[in-house]
């Protein structure tokens, strides 16, 4: 039971708004961790702290520590580009690039090249075409999309259905070989069948990756996650094994939220 992500007294401010208040939690490796809570409780903000996407928002201040595999991602010497390669993110509304399916998946690997070398001297070089083909196929297979698109890789990514687009976005993230994948309400724009496919995929992915999913659908969190964290008004209220949270929550607030008696 290794800890993949550890946060310590994490505070986030958007101008004067105190969005996250002293969040400290541990996320375990190779598990699906779900984050639930009412709208505006800070779950997405927390998620974006992990791969430093909050840096892109002007006026955002992050205090506290976010340790990923023992390394503080906000440290000065850390390269944010590398952080984002190792921690992938899939967004709420599928956002494939308006390029071909192949190009969508190949973009990441093309960007980063291949790191190789020996005796401590590492060099980055461009991928060969065959390597890229292999990566694209492998990623699309892993995202359970290969069979549906293998004979139209040159078609635009936006020509796919919603569920397929989202899986394309997942394949795109997988292509750079991350360690952790963050999902921000990935199914909220999809129909039940597409949702079910992606849920199956998430459970499958935890074998090789650490999965963190923010969702406002409690039943989804209950279905697929191993551990669940409940956020309310910027604070972490309770976190534990999903079964325990949904059968015997310890905190009154948690109980109120999951039985739908909040608000």
């Amino acid at each position, binding site marked *: 039971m290794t800890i993949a992500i550890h946060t310590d007294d994490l505070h986030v401010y958007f101008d004067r708004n105190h969005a996250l208040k002293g969040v400290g939690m541990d996320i375990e490796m190779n598990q699906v961790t779900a984050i639930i809570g009412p709208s505006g409780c800070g779950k997405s903000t927390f998620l974006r702290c992990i791969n430093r996407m909050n840096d892109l928002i002007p006026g955002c201040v992050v205090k506290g520590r976010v340790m990923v595999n023992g390394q503080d991602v906000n440290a000065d010497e850390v390269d944010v580009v590398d952080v984002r390669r190792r921690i992938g993110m899939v967004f709420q509304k599928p956002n494939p690039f308006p390029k071909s399916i192949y190009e969508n998946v190949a973009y990441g690997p093309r960007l980063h090249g291949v790191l190789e070398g020996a005796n401590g001297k590492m060099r980055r070089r461009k991928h060969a075409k065959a390597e890229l083909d292999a990566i694209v196929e492998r990623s699309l297979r892993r995202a359970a999309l290969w069979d549906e698109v293998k004979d139209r890789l040159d078609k635009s990514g936006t020509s796919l259905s919603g569920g397929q687009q989202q899986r394309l976005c997942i394949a795109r993230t997988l292509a750079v070989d991350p360690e952790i994948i963050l999902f921000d309400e990935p199914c909220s724009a999809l129909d039940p069948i597409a949702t079910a496919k992606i849920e199956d995929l998430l459970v499958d992915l935890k074998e090789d990756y650490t999965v963190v999913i923010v969702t406002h659908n*409690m039943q989804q969190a209950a279905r697929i996650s191993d551990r669940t964290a409940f956020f309310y008004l910027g604070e972490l209220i309770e976190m534990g094994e999903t079964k325990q949270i*949904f*059968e015997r*929550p310890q905190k009154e607030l948690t109980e109120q939220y*999951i*039985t*739908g*008696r909040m*608000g």
Partner: protein
Amino acid sequence: MAPRTTFNYEMEGLQKEITEMANASRAAFEKAVRMITDGDLSLREEVRALDRHVYELNEQIDEHCLDIIALHSPVASDLRLISACLKMVEDLNRFGRYATDIAELIDDFEEGKAFKRFESLRSMSCLVVGMVDDAVYSFLQRDAEKASHLHERDDAVDSLYDTIFREILTYMMEDPRKITVGIDLILVARYMERVADHACNIGEYVYHMVTGERLDPKLRTGAGERPPRGIFEHPNPRTELDLK
């Protein structure tokens, strides 16, 4: 207005039903025992009527619980309540069933005279009625503490049953003409011992419903464990049975 109005409405309805069933089955059993202690045979019809009511409610509550599960995905305390209800209805049903069985048997007594002779039977019936009361009240008041103590009295009831069995055996052996009555008395004692077991079950369900933990299984066997002293001292001893 609280959100999930339909769900809340359904849950409140369920609460009402299970409360009604708990009270009805408790009342049935108490009346049945009263028939024996006071010889009031007129209560038999009431017992039968209550039992029928209990039986209908059993089906109704069962259906209701399944509906709520299918339609509303209850979690946490709601889920535990429904789990308790689904299991409890069976035990409450048994209360009513045994009450009727006891009520039927009273026919054959010489107006309860025989019953009055056996003090152990009388104390056993007091004890068991107390357990039924506590089981039902612990559910209604969500009192896990009360629920967890039912086991202690169950052991006492079991040993009382053994005592009564031996007593009645002696009674029957003294006079073979008393065998019919004796067997009826043994059956009554047996039914009451079963009722006590069911009351204990309800205690377990209530404990889980309130705390989310399971009651320690070691308590169940009771083997090798002597009932604590003063067990016949019921916390609120009843001198007479007040039937509501």
